[in-house]
């Protein structure tokens, strides 16, 4: 087989696996607040809004259908449609420099319903000490199975920091946020 023939097959065989890049069966849009105190980053408070059809499935299975989610319904939603995800780190891909940070716990989970859409809010503790030198962190939410597409809402990510912490945020690509921060004199 000559080189030209080989190339044809290679191109063809590469086209097929490219299809891996489009699968999602459900969609999540999120907002996030990175919370800093005087010592540095403390964690991320995030809110996830699900697509209407997945929302309906969870609402139908775990609630009485009104938009008020009582304690018992909160618990059912947590057990049936969140705990598995919480145990595996909530799709969090967090980086301190080149070191990957594994999310260990999820706090303050709350489910709510607005206009038929299911909304989860929760807090992911992630402590990174601020110093006088600039520190870099990166974060995104990503489902490695491609079953669920998690994307940020427009202008949905904010930094909440006190005066002694100087912060800067840039979007590396459409899903990854890079944040630099350092301690400064007030």
């Amino acid at each position: 087989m000559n080189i030209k023939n080989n190339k044809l097959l290679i191109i063809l065989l590469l086209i097929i696996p490219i299809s891996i890049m489009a699968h999602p069966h459900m969609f999540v849009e999120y907002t996030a607040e990175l919370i800093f105190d005087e010592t540095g980053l403390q964690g991320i408070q995030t809110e996830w809004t699900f697509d209407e059809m997945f929302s309906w499935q969870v609402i139908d299975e775990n609630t009485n259908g009104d938009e008020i989610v009582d304690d018992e319904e909160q618990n059912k939603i947590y057990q049936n449609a969140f705990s598995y995800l919480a145990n595996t780190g909530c799709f969090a891909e967090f980086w301190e420099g080149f070191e990957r940070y594994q999310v260990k716990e999820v706090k303050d989970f709350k489910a709510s319903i607005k206009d038929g859409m299911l909304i989860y809010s929760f807090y992911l503790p992630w402590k990174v000490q601020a110093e006088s030198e600039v520190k870099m962190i990166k974060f995104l939410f990503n489902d490695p199975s491609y079953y669920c597409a998690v994307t940020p809402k427009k202008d949905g990510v904010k930094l909440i920091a006190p005066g002694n912490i100087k912060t800067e945020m840039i979007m590396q690509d459409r899903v990854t946020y890079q944040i630099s921060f350092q301690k400064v004199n007030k």
Partner: protein
Amino acid sequence: MKKIISIIIILSIVAILFAQNPFTSKTDKTKVTESKLSKNSLWLKIVDIQKNLNRSVSSSLRKLKQEFDYKIFLILIGVSFLYGVVHAIGPGHGKMLVGAYFLKEKASVFSSLKIGSIISITHSGSAAILGLLVGIFFKSAKMYKDDFQMYITIFSGILIAVLGVFYLLRSIFPKKFEHNHNSKEKNELLLGVFSGMVPCPVSLTIILFSIYLDLLWVGISCVLALSLGMAVTISLIGILVIKTRAVTEFMTRKRSTLSLVMGKILSISGSLIIISIGVFMALSKI
């Protein structure tokens, strides 16, 4: 060539391994994995398109629930068709198998259209039947659990692997196996049905949602249009493989020994890919 085949197999495994809903399914995959693909701009564009199409489907169904309007219905059918075209670009819709089959087998464009249609009809049809059973008998999504998806994926994987072993034996010992037009038709039908039998989660969701809105026939129409869209994409992948195979054969026609060896390699490689896909589909769920 070996490297390329390895890459394809690894990528298909990655896709299939995690094909259950991560919100409602128990998983042992506690290790954090990183994916560069999800940051790819092409992937993100496709996600955006699918997100908008998904939103259009649900909002159109809601509008039709409030007041039926044929214009909205026709738009919904068109949107569902487009959703099918884009959705089938992703893994888990039999394209790898179609590619491997036509790599292995010399076939016509018609064969690709046929297999593409069988896969998408079975894929959406099984979802529609499951949705109807769940929706009509239980009137909600409560009774549907991902366990069903798991068992049917294992079953489908085993059948595909068995079919792959048969193809492999036939490639190695062609004289011992009957290979006429009828057996080819039968093989194509089996491959299509085995590949498509795992219900499509999107079709299932649309059917359940339409039952909830009391718009069952609209939901079925949506799923039909979605199937047609998926058939277009799957068939196009098949046609691409068929044409490339034909070009490769044409270029090696003057060297008959090389052409023969080439045909044999393609045939065995295709069979091995089919076996691998089947085995990993089944193992990933056990």
